[in-house]
Structures are given as structure tokens and as C-alpha cells.
């Protein structure tokens, strides 16, 4: 009964939304400010990828907020799950009950550096090709995820993660603040724009995107590490309950 009402109500909402969106023609050009972005990201900023120019410069403030959301998520995860460090190191061998196969481990030895290199390539070329700090950061985090899953002894020093995370965050906000100290505005470009499609072009944009790349990689690795350590906590609990029974 409840489900039927929900389905009818949602069908109504869906139809209503569809009717509204059907009024918006598909594939039509309705750019307004976007026209300006497209014209000026190569001209004024020397950035080939217009999405990068918007994400990092025109609407860079959103991106600062977005990085903050990820930072918040990793902090929140820590505060919600109460990671217990000492247990973590003592029981880290419990993360995977079965060791990954030899093939996986050997493949990992060759693959992981390549994955990390690919990630770095993606965020260094963020202003030229598709992808950038976020995508590159995620790719690097996937590399660390592989390590965490394949090698049961592999642990990530949490201090390093915090250090990279903080440093990258300060770099992002700091580059923004330099703009103010130079008498310009927050996050304004203060370096020469350079030639379009050169690696060294786009002023501060590649710098910020590299900082974002490091930050995202560190944050996501931290999140994955925290999430994967849930199982350690659970196993710890099981062991505790078993020893209680035995006593």
C-alpha cells in the first residue's frame, strides 16, 4: 500500500519533471556567459581545456569549496568511525584474510608505479587534455587501493597523508591569497599566460591543478584506508567476543 502510494507520487513527479524538461530543446545553443568562457580561456588564460579554465579560474572558488568538501569527508569519516590507530598497526595483517595471488602481487609491482605515473600525467596536463587534478588524484588513489588490497603488509603512514593533504590545501588557498597580496583579487592569475597548448602555459592554473591533484589523491587514499580499516575493527570485535566466550 505504502509502496503503491510512493510509486504513484513519484510517477507524478517524474512526469511533471519530464514535461518541464521537454520544453528545453535538446542540442540547442543557449550559451550566455559560457560564450565568454570559451572565447577567453585560450585568449586570456592560455588554457586549451575550457572546462579546466572554468573549474580552476573562472569558477575557482567553487573548486576551493569542492576540495574542502573532500577534506571534510575524510575528517568526518575519521570522526565518525573513530579509527583506533594502535589496533590498526597490531592487526593490520587481518585486513585481507586471504593473501592475494602471486600474479596479482607481481603485477602490482609493475602496475602501481605506472598507475601513479598516469595519474601524475593526467593532472600535469590538466590544462591541455581532458582530465585534471580530480581525475589524476583519483587515479593515484586507485593505485594505492591496489597496494592496500594486494599486499597485506602494506600500510600507509597516516602522517604522510595528513602532511600531503595539508600542504596541498595550503598551496591552493595560499596561491589564492598571493593574488590579494599582489593587489589583485583572490585566485587571480598573476603569472604570464604563455602560449596556447604549451605545457608551461595557463599561469597559475596548472599549479593549482597539481595542488588539487595531490590533495585529492591524499584525501581519497585516506578515505579508502579508513574504510578498509573498518574490517579490522570488525574482526577485532569478533576476536574480543571470542576470547570473552573462552574465558
Amino acid at each position: 500500500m505504502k509502496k503503491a502510494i510512493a510509486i504513484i507520487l513519484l510517477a507524478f513527479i517524474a512526469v511533471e519533471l519530464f514535461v518541464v524538461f521537454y520544453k528545453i530543446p535538446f542540442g540547442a545553443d543557449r550559451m550566455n556567459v559560457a560564450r565568454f568562457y570559451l572565447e577567453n580561456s585560450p585568449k586570456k588564460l592560455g588554457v586549451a581545456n575550457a572546462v579546466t579554465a572554468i573549474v580552476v579560474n573562472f569558477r575557482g572558488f567553487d573548486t576551493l569549496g569542492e576540495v574542502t568538501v573532500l577534506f571534510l569527508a575524510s575528517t568526518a569519516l575519521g570522526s565518525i568511525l573513530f579509527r583506533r590507530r594502535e589496533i590498526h598497526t597490531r592487526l593490520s595483517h587481518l585486513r585481507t584474510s586471504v593473501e592475494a595471488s602471486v600474479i596479482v602481487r607481481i603485477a602490482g609491482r609493475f602496475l602501481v608505479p605506472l598507475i601513479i605515473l598516469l595519474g601524475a600525467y593526467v593532472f600535469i596536463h590538466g590544462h591541455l587534455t581532458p582530465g585534471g587534478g580530480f581525475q589524476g588524484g583519483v587515479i593515484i588513489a586507485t593505485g594505492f587501493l591496489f597496494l592496500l588490497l594486494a599486499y597485506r603488509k602494506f600500510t600507509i603512514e597516516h602522517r604522510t597523508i595528513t602532511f600531503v593533504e595539508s600542504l596541498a590545501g595550503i598551496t591552493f588557498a595560499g596561491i589564492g591569497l598571493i593574488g590579494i597580496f599582489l593587489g589583485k583579487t583572490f585566485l587571480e592569475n598573476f603569472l604570464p599566460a604563455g602560449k596556447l597548448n604549451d605545457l608551461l602555459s595557463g599561469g597559475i592554473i596548472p599549479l593549482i591543478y597539481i595542488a588539487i591533484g595531490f590533495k585529492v589523491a591524499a584525501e581519497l587514499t585516506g578515505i579508502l584506508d579508513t574504510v578498509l580499516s573498518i574490517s579490522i575493527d570488525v574482526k577485532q570485535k569478533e576476536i574480543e567476543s571470542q576470547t570473552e566466550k573462552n574465558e
Partner: protein
Amino acid sequence: MVATNHILVTPIYFIALPLFFAFLLPLLGKIYKSFIRIVPGLMFAYLAWMAVVLLLYVYKTGNPVIVKIAGWAPPIGIDLVFDQFTGFIATVIAILGFLVWMYSYLFKKVEFDNALKYFLLLMLIYAGSIGVVITGDLFNQFVFLEITGISAYALTAFYRGRDGAEAAFKYLLIGSFASTFVLLGILLIYTQLGTLNMADIARNIDKMDPTIKVIAFILLFTGFGIEAEMFPLNGWAPDAYSQSPGPIGAVFASMTSKAGLYALIRLSFTIFDFSSANELLFIMGILTLVFAEGIALRQEKIKRMLAYSSIGQIGLIMIAFSFNTYLGVFAGIFLMLNHALVKSLLFFSASFLAYNSPHKYIKDIQGFARYMPVTALMFGIGVFAIIGFPPFSGFWSKFYLLSAMAEKNFVILIILVLSVSLIELVYYFRVLHKLYFAEPTGEYQPHTPRWNAMLAMVLLALIIIAIGVYPDLVTGFIGKAAHAIMDKTTYINSVFSI
């Protein structure tokens, strides 16, 4: 000078500094542990001072301070608007942020790791709330709303108790609904106008297809309404208020709900031009008020009671704004100020009362006034102020509200507001009676506030009394703020004149 870009005083610092120090704090903590408490405090103090300076500047010159970001003038880039209205609310939030920090400086459960997270989250929820208020861009407002939301979820689940996670999950669910609605609304506006800047949208709103305009308005109104604790989507609020650490109740009342309300008001007053928006605001306000005060009467736990009373105040504020007259808006802003100050004082003092009662029930606080006279006195001042007795600030806010109603000849509404005040009187005095006149059940060694919490509460009480005795302290600012929010053209022109 419309746009200031002073190196020491610029609205951008309200967001840039908390984020910068939030990223820096884990490193600072490694150098010297107490930095994690001191550095946020210095920052909050600086920002509160800066807010006052900026507000005085705006008040004296009459020019809003508008900064562009990344060097692009709106609508190309994102802009921050610190005008008489947003500036006033931002200043209130900034001052309360400093007081909340002072209150939690020696917060009891603070061990290193937890303290780090607590102050991080406090800084980020502060940056998010001020960001929602001063940003001039709709999508940017969404991002700040998300920052506020996620820090609020984390703070709700901050304690290990079993109910915190439940409250946080509930909050997260409804908050995700809100963000989906807001996103869809932003998308609809973008497809029609191709811009995300609020002033640009307001300028071109006539160009929107009428149906799409209505749907976009409803989506955004619902989304922001959830954050503002509007009926019927406020089921999360009492749980979140009562499960979070003591001072965070004050943060929710004075910062996050103010940010949501601001977004709602900006939406109805500036961005859209519906005359029926005021009626919608009015109806939702009445429903929120009646529903919340009715439930507050039946609450057994002190923090839940305060939470429902807080929702009721939000309803009153919505009603005041819905009149769309100068006096009504004036009363609304005064109510916002009063609510932020008084609810913070109530939550500050009540969290000590609740902390010492084992199950947080009102009946457990019998005779606590003997053991913690100052806290009880502070709670008493808060109660008198929120009901609207002179000489507290609440008196003036209710006075202006009633005169706004009288001006419009809303006799029934006047009766409603007076009877709501009576209901408030009943449930607050029940607590006061228990606090002062009931016999204590046994010997207590209560946990009493330390000097920092005491100082924060006394400062708040002094502000409340000062405004109550001498309302001209704030009426000038509030008057200009009311003019600023009602004057759509000036807002648009000043944004585009930089």
C-alpha cells in the same frame, strides 16, 4: 568606493581564512598541541573584528562592499556581496562564531584528536554558513550549503553515543534531498538564462518560461526551506540539536538555520519576482510556528524543547518577512538577531543543565539553581528574552513584529503571536520552576562551567540586555538592512557597477 580590495579587510577572508587554517591545523597541531585551540580563536577574533569594521564602513558610506574573485567581474566570475543586509547577518554569525569558540575553548571532552576534529569542523561550518550568506552566485551557494551540511552531519555524530549516528543519518538523508532539489532548480534556471549569478538572474528573470520559472522556484524554495528548518521537512532538526555537542546546538540555531533562512529570503525577495512567494512564505511560516510550538509543549527533554522552540522562531521570522513591508522586514531581521543571540545563550546554559541530568529530562534538573547559580541565571535571562519581556532584546523584536502586524491590521495574527508567546511562557516557565523552586533530589557534585564558558555566556547576556535597554544600538543597522533586502534594483546595480 564600491569594491574594496584592502589587504587587511576584505570579505573574502571570511571564507579563505577558515579554509586556509582548516588545512593548516593538522600541521600546526604537530608543532604545538595547544595551537589547535588558540589559532582558530585568533582567527575567529580577527574575523569578528573585520566584520564589524566592514559593517561600519558599509553603514557609514551606504555603499556595499563587493569583491570579485579571480579578477572576473560578475556575471563572469563569482562575486561576494557584503551589503547592509548580508553584512549584518554575516556580522552576527562572525560574532557568534567567536563566542562559540570561547565557550568551547576548554570543552570537556577535548583530547587531542577529537579537539582537532572539533575545531576543524567548527571552522568549516562557520565558513560554509557565512559563504551561503555573502556569495552572489547560486551554484556557489549550493557548494557552501553542502560544506555546511557535511560538517553538520559530522558534528551531529561527534559523540560516541548510539543516537548521534541515527540523528546524523536522518539529517544526511533530508539534506541530500535538499541538495538534489537545489541542483535541479539551478539547472532549470541555467537552461533558461545561461547564467548563475544571482543579480544577473534577477535582472533577466522575465525572460524565463513561466512554467519553468514556477517549477524552479518551488524546487529551490523546498531545498533551501529544508536547510532553514521549514515545516514539514524539519524532522531532522530536533534530533540533530539534541545529539550534537552542547555548543553546536547554538551553532545550528545561530549559523546554519540563519544561512538557510537567508537563502530563502534572497530567493523570494531578489531572485524571483513572484508576488505569491510572500503568501507561500506566510503559509509555511504559520504552519512551522504552530506545529513547532505545539510539539515543544509536550517535550520532556530540555534540548529537544529548545530545538522545537527554535523552529517556532524560524516560523515567526518567515511570517515577519512575508509581509513585505518595511516594518515587517525590520521586525524579521530583529527577530533573526534576537533568535541567534538568545538561542545561543539558552543552548550554552542548557547544555550544562542537561549534562548534569543523567537522562537529559527536564524533571531531572530539580533545584539545580542552588548548585550552579550563574548558569541558571543565564538560562533565566534567555527564557525572559525569548518570550519577550523587557528589558531584553526579545521585547523589541516582538514589539516591532506586533507593530508590523498592527500596521497591516492583522488582528488574528496578533492574537496568534500573543497566544504562541503564552505557550512559550508555559513550557519555559515549567523548566524555570523546576530549576529554581523544586527541591533537589539529592546531593550533587555538578559539573559547572569553567571560566571560558562563563565568560561567553556573560558576554552574550550583556549583549542581550544592552540591546534591550538601548535598542538604538542595532536599529540603525537593521533599518538599513531592511531597506537593502527590499531594494532589488540597488542590489543588481551595485553588483554590476564593479
